[in-house]
């Protein structure tokens, strides 16, 4: 098991944002995390990335206890993450942004730059390499975030709504990019609202509601689950159908 979280709870004062959540991810998997807004996905995510220390529970990565490890320690052992709101380094060029990630495993400038260039090419940012990050639009920023994390050579990538806010064409390109990364041997956990992404990319999903994992399994089965429809997808599917008509 590459990532294993058991009974993770994160409470803010009396409010339990995440309550007794479990996840187990095998090397090479793509696992989806879905659930309505405020379900606790991002909090759980932050616990997995070391950005928050859980109130209770245990998280292990590659057999090593990382429950209390810092975000930088997570990066070093091979856990990379993106942010829901892109946190690109605005006053640095695209290349320099990616180089910051590349420096983790390539301490020398030339190696880091070469590695960053490869990643930039792979993520389709070659044309914008020398632009300021702040000059990129939302799709570019999301791509840059993925590129920057990828440059740290992670074994596990945690994608927090990295595909939200894209046009249909951009979305297809982004899905293809995630596939490419997966084929490179990177295990992926993805938080996403867009069912199309979940359905096409993942073989297994966890559904969050009010801090609890209420269902898990194949996406096509989960979609039919009563509790899930009740909590989230029901309303979502309903709206979808309405829009189509």
């Amino acid at each position, binding site marked *: 098991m590459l990532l294993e979280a058991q009974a993770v709870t994160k409470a803010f004062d009396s409010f339990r944002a995440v309550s007794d959540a479990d996840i187990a991810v095998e090397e090479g998997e793509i696992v989806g995390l879905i659930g309505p807004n405020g379900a606790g996905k991002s909090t759980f995510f932050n616990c997995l990335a070391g950005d928050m220390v859980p109130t209770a529970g245990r998280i292990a990565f590659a057999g090593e206890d990382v429950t209390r490890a810092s975000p930088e320690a997570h990066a070093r052992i091979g856990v990379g993450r993106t942010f829901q709101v892109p946190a690109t380094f605005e006053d*640095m060029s695209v290349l320099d942004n990616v180089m910051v990630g590349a420096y983790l495993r390539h301490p020398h400038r030339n190696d880091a730059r070469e590695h960053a260039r490869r990643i930039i090419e792979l993520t389709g940012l070659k044309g914008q390499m020398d632009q300021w990050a702040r000059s990129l639009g939302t799709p570019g920023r999301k791509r840059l975030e993925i590129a920057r994390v990828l440059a740290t050579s992670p074994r596990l990538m945690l994608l927090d709504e990295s595909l939200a806010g894209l046009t249909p064409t951009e979305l297809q390109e982004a899905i293809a990019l995630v596939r490419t990364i997966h084929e490179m041997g990177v295990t992926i956990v993805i938080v996403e609202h867009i069912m199309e992404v979940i359905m096409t990319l993942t073989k297994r999903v966890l559904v969050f509601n009010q801090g609890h994992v209420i269902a898990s399994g194949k996406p096509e089965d989960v979609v039919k689950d009563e509790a899930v429809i009740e909590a989230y997808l029901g309303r979502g599917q309903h709206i979808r159908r309405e829009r189509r008509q």
Partner: protein
Amino acid sequence: MKSLTAAGPAALLLAAGLLSYPVVFSDPYYLDIGVTFLLAAISASAWNVVGGYAGQVSVGHSMFFGIGAYAPLLFYTLFKWPPMVGIPVGIAVSVALAVVIGVPTFRLTGHYFSMATIAVAELIRIFFGTWNLVGAAIGLQGPATARGWWDLTFRSELPYYYIFLAVLALLLYFTFAVERRRFGYYLRAIKAGERASRSLGVPVQQTKIKALIFSAAFTSVAGSLYSIKTGFIDPESGFGILVSVQMVIIAALGGAGTLFGPLVGALILIPLQTATNTWFGGGGSGLTYILYGGIIVVIARFEPGGVFELWDRIVPRRWRRKYAA
């Protein structure tokens, strides 16, 4: 990358100008302005590493300047040793202080960090003002006449000018090297976003402390050079808040976080400051506060990025691209 290539020819021109300045302006009055300018440029460039590149705005760098300034004169006063013996001691104490101060204060961000640094510098100033070993409120004096070249006590300002210029060149060279290395990238990343930096494996706390050590060491050297040249130091001229504020203003004026920003800032501020002090005579120090306040307002209102950013905006993009490519 852009500032580097575009600044290449400009830097050469600047170097030629600085080297020949004492020849062209040999009058002691102008030479003194030159020496003051170099010292201000060294302090502000040293501050720039942690305050500019890493974005950790210290307003208490006078603590390192003061320690660097007291050390040489203390050794002279106590043991009659050549003042320059104090330079490495000042560096060592400043570096130790940087670690001691850095560990707790770097847990604070933004204004809280700035305020904590002011508080520490003020504490040290008040402490030195009552400590008899360092002359309390009166301060310390250096050798009145040189016993040999090693006292670095010269009648003319000319030797100081070239010593200071050499130190500035060394500091800028180190900064240039830092800028290109992982360390420099990490500093800029920390300024741009600590959370994202950590998620990419940047050891934020450790990098900040390294930057502060580098910065403190050179600020201390600036202080030592100041006291050796002036032959006098007291709590206000060593640890006063104006000393810290001057570094911040000069760097911000020229462009914090750029290699030549502090130098450009000093090039503007020092002549301006000297001129206002000369024109208005005795009430000089009060006027300095007003000048600094005015500059802060102007920078904050019109150009938070400093003169370098102004250049970015004024010079047409097409023209710049030629250099960037």
